[in-house]
């Protein structure tokens, strides 16, 4: 069965979110968010600052505890899980790409060490094998193999971001959370990163939840789109449909506000 057949044959969602709510005192963080995510699918979450998208992402990734709602990953109740199990999930099946690569890398550890860490965390104990896997992954994110011993401090922003992606993907996660992965990068560097991400999603059958305020990024990367405003999802659907034929007032406003280049 080809990857595509495998992916399209799956009828069970990889991730099911129901009624997810997180409040900060009297303020709404995110309210009553529900969606399904299937293998090989990229879900974009857009909205302006304060829309609740970052709160949603951090609840999904297990960084914060929601007040209400359920998160079911691969049949397991993520919220009811022990912290140890959740952390383990975060090191193996899940990945989290931070907006600022410094938050997702160990700056004082070499590129190879950064990529190898997740392998060592799940018990890899052969130096040669670890180094070979690290070299392989650096190649996949288009970082020269001879930079394997350099520290991320010596890398450009785009390279750091690609290193963060390699570090996250080395254990073959199925679900990747991304928080503005191209924010802060030069426009030309963004393009390269987007293409890399598309290729990885396709080749590895990854499911991705990507939070961004950049509509151009979601158009290129996401299959489906959720628009958030004031903590709530106001519209969701096929990415190009939501962007080209927006139904909700806020979405229409958002789309029409984008500067055309």
């Amino acid at each position, binding site marked *: 069965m080809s990857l595509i057949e495998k992916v399209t044959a799956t009828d069970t969602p990889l991730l099911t979110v129901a009624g997810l709510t997180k409040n900060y005192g009297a303020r709404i963080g995110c309210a009553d968010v529900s969606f399904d995510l299937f293998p090989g699918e990229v879900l974009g979450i857009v909205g302006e600052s304060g829309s609740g998208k970052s709160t949603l992402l951090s609840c999904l990734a297990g960084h914060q505890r929601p007040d209400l709602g359920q998160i079911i990953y691969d049949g397991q109740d993520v919220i009811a899980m022990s912290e140890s199990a959740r952390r383990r999930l975060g090191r193996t099946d899940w990945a989290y790409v931070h907006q600022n690569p410094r938050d997702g890398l160990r700056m004082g550890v070499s590129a190879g060490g950064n990529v190898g860490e997740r392998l060592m965390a799940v018990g890899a104990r052969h130096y040669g094998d670890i180094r070979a896997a690290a070299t392989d992954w650096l190649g996949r994110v288009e970082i020269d193999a001879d930079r394997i011993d350099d520290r991320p401090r010596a890398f450009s922003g785009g390279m750091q971001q690609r290193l963060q992606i390699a570090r996250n993907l080395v254990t073959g996660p199925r679900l990747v959370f991304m928080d503005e992965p191209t924010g802060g990068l030069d426009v030309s560097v963004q393009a390269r990163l987007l293409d890399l991400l598309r290729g990885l999603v396709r080749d590895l059958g990854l499911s991705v939840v990507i939070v961004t305020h950049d509509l151009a990024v979601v158009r290129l990367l996401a299959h*489906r789109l959720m628009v958030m405003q004031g903590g709530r999802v106001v519209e969701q659907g096929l990415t190009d*449909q939501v962007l*080209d034929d927006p139904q909700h007032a806020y979405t*229409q406003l958002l789309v029409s506000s984008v500067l055309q280049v």
Partner: protein
Amino acid sequence: MIRIENLSKSFTLQNQGGAVIPVMAGANLAVSPGECVGLIGPSGAGKSTLMRLVWGNYLAAGGAIHIGATDVAQATPREIIALRRDRLGYVSQFLRVVPRVPTRDVVAEPLLQLGVSQGEARLRAETLLARLNIPQRLWDLSPTTFSGGEQQRVNIARGFIHAYPALLLDEPTASLDSTNRAVVLELINEAKARGAAILGIFHDEDARSIVCDRLVDVTEFTPQAAA
């Protein structure tokens, strides 16, 4: 293969007092396998709107759009994505790509989505690009810097790289010289010959007469006409 029944569409401008603009009503249209139907009508009459509705880019207000067994008007986003992957192709007027991706990879992409090996996908892309007279030296470059005609041909290559049973073509021969126009018309005829159902917009009357088996005037579907 493509069957449109009683399709209607309106736009609601939420930020302008909720003004409702009906643009289509009572559209009925069927395209059989091997047939090419051309949409005609003045600018703004709704030709592109109809295409976008079939593609799933616009939400239908009512009616049905059957592509094989799938009703696009009712389908979930996942189902539409699956449809677009192997059964429905679309050559739009504009080339929208990730910047900096080489032309060869842009064209090969639909095949990679279908699980074709990278080597084979690239080879088929190159063959098609050569046929469309895109010189080899351009294959490694991003098409964003190409001329209008070159971009259009890259768009076409991407749309024809896979044998879609249903195809939507929006002005496929605009900005092309006669040589390349001929190649495109050849491609369309080949698609028809293998049983594809094609819906197209051709401003070029000659092209229309060569490939279209029937013409449908979309002004029949404007709301005043239906009323």
